[in-house]
């Protein structure tokens, strides 16, 4: 593949992410990987539901007492919005507007980082209350499920940031377009998992 090929918005392919065989492979391989990730999170959800509110006799922590929806609502809004901004970024990639894409990716990263900040605060708060990782089966399951999601957010942030920095000067080509595209797929996936965490862990936790 020739990285020096210059494109115009007119000559840039409609689907730059799958315009080459490498791109097609990456696109399909990443979708399949997300299929495997789905099963991974499904296993963690099942474990959480089996161990929810379970602990040593006399444990005082329950989902109703622990979770506070206003905080989780803010986190949800941040992450959902970041998914939207990553769509804008991909929209501009298809239109061959590199600066606009970078700008929207930067917004995505900032929103994701804010989300992660709130999550770290939330975990710190629980640990401060005595709800530590080794306190009960419930606490282990909660921190493992939500923490695995948080780790995905962290990896996603690092990944998108690296991509932005690496390509700042050279703009689009058919080698990096699939990379941006699968990173945005990953980001959407993280968002979808959070929707399930919000519903299954927090909403169903508060309702009881």
């Amino acid at each position: 593949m020739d990285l020096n090929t210059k494109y115009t918005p007119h000559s840039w392919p409609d689907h730059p992410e799958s315009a080459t065989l490498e791109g097609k492979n990456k696109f399909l391989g990443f979708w399949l990987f997300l299929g495997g990730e789905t099963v991974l999170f499904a296993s963690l959800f099942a474990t959480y539901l089996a161990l929810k509110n379970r602990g040593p006799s006399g444990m005082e922590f329950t989902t109703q007492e622990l979770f506070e929806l206003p905080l989780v609502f803010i986190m949800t809004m941040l992450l959902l919005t970041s998914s939207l901004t990553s769509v804008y970024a991909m929209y501009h990639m298809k239109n061959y507007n590199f600066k606009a894409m970078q700008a929207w990716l930067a917004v995505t990263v900032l929103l994701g980082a804010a989300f992660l900040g709130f999550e770290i605060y939330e975990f710190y708060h629980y640990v401060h209350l005595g709800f530590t990782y080794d306190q009960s089966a419930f606490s282990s399951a909660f921190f493992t499920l939500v923490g695995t999601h948080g780790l995905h957010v962290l990896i996603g942030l690092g990944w998108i940031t690296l991509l932005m920095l690496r390509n700042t000067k050279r703009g689009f080509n058919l080698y990096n377009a699939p990379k941006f595209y699968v990173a945005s797929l990953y980001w959407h996936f993280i968002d979808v998992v959070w929707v399930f965490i919000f519903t299954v862990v927090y909403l169903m936790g508060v309702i009881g």
Partner: protein
Amino acid sequence: MSSIAQKKGFGATLWDYLTTVDHKKIAILYLITGGFFFIVGGIEAMLIRIQLLKPDNDFVAAGLYNEIITMHGTTMIFLAAMPLLFGFMNAAVPLQIGARDVAFPFLNSLGFWMFFFGGIFLNLSWFLGGAPDAGWTSYASLAISSPGHGIDFYALGLQISGGGTLIAGINFLVTIINMRAPGMTYMRMPLFTWTTFVASALILFAFPPLTVGLFLMIFDRMFGANFFDHTMGGNTIIWEHLFWIFGHPEVYILILPAFGIFSEIFSTFSRKRLFGYSAMVFATVLIGFLGFMVWAHHMFTTGMGATANAIFAVATMAIAVPTGVKIFNWLLTMWGGSIKFTTPMLYAVGFIPSFVAGGVTGVMQASAPLDYQLHDSYFIVAHFHYVIVGGVVLGLLAGLHYYWPLMFNTMLNEAMGKITFWLFFLGFHLTFFIQHFLGLLGMPRRVFTYGEDQGWDLFNAISSYGAIFMAAGVIVLVVNIVMTIAKNVPVGRDPWGDGRTLEWAIPQPVPFYNFKQIPLVRGLDTYWIEKQEGNVEGMTYAEPIGDIHMPNNSIIPFIMSLGLFVGAFGALYNGEQPWAIPVLGLGLIITFAAMATRSLKDDLGYHIHKEDLLNEKGGKH
């Protein structure tokens, strides 16, 4: 032409294999490593049979016996059978579909090195304070309170090698979907490609539950979590479910590619088109689907209740139907064929009655009430050795003889191959047939010895003598391999004379770019069609000769896997050694730095130019 033909120093060859992204060389790496672990697992099996040779034997102590049976099972499944299958998949599948390489050559190398370091890590437990001792299933009720670090080695080692397997699975799925040559429609794919495809899909969905289960085990044992500790609200049944949601598809991940190898062999040496090709494809897909619906039949006695047991019993029995379809199709492929009894064909013919016997006892156990009688007895041991040795291992040995000329351009000695077959085949039945009756007589599995007055002496002795025959067969095989390599007589293209599919149409030794021109596939068994029409080149081409794009070699996969290997020691000694967390951090930094390097550094590959292909200089770059 081939890089094998070039004279190279040992260091250069080693570096070549450490950095290679060529599926044919990765196949050889899988074959060597898998073969090594097969021998290790075999030695463990012999130790088991020596211990059980006579009553009240004290050849090994009870604790060591537990470690040996655990490592025998774990090694054979994860470190021998699967890598050997991956070896054949890598060797044959890209050639069968007319591709120049797999979809992700870099990931192919990463998958191998993760498996390699995971396997080494697991086996280092023998030298670092004791091997895992809770059985290959490592039920949490036993495993969380096992003293020492054995279980930690198990969980971390399988986590690393399991990651490699998942990567390999995704790679083969994408390869088969995206990289097929023009004309290679899904319903023209050779059966081995089809079974690789379905097995890879099973890997994709079956390995993540194992990943989660192993993480829960790691967190419980090394980082203070309480998933399995019932005094802290935990529940050990979670492990059983997660393990078997992985574990049952796993047996299909093993057997389906073996079915594929046998399908190729039956049609090649019956010199007939595979009978009921489309039914075979459908049966393969159906087995793959049903394989996910039956995990709880391993847990009938756990106490899930009659309704759950009934559902899983019926689902399990249903798998016998597509499997039966396959058996009859193989028989009918031979029917009326002009059969040549080569070594691979002997294995294939021997496989049918052996595997059917294992299948029949499987249906017996699917009946939940009967399973209460058979559970945890030697009947179970006999059953799963009939399907795994009678199915998978016979398939591997058949594949080894069948694909050896494809991989090495020389042929294993047929006479010695047949001696291996008869020693191994007779030894196998002698060892395991009698274990059905030991089970019915009440002998529980995993006991390290038994009393003189229990009436199990003679049957155990017969079983142990049978194992000696199997070992003798493997020794003849090793001698055969050494002699074949020493002689190294080139055999050229289509060495069996009856190759039907594309991999046999390529000139030998296979050029590192596989196909100078991508072939046009004109039907099922495309090479057979070309041969029938008198095409001496063996292929119709889909393109003129042009530049070929090739991937660059890379050491990064090796470093990435090495980082995980180093980090695993940190996790293992967490809370015990002051250097544990720094080492864990160091390992992860190595891995993530390698990933970042891969991401930041462009890897565009290179081109072999048309002129070099035309004047046969393609191998020099």
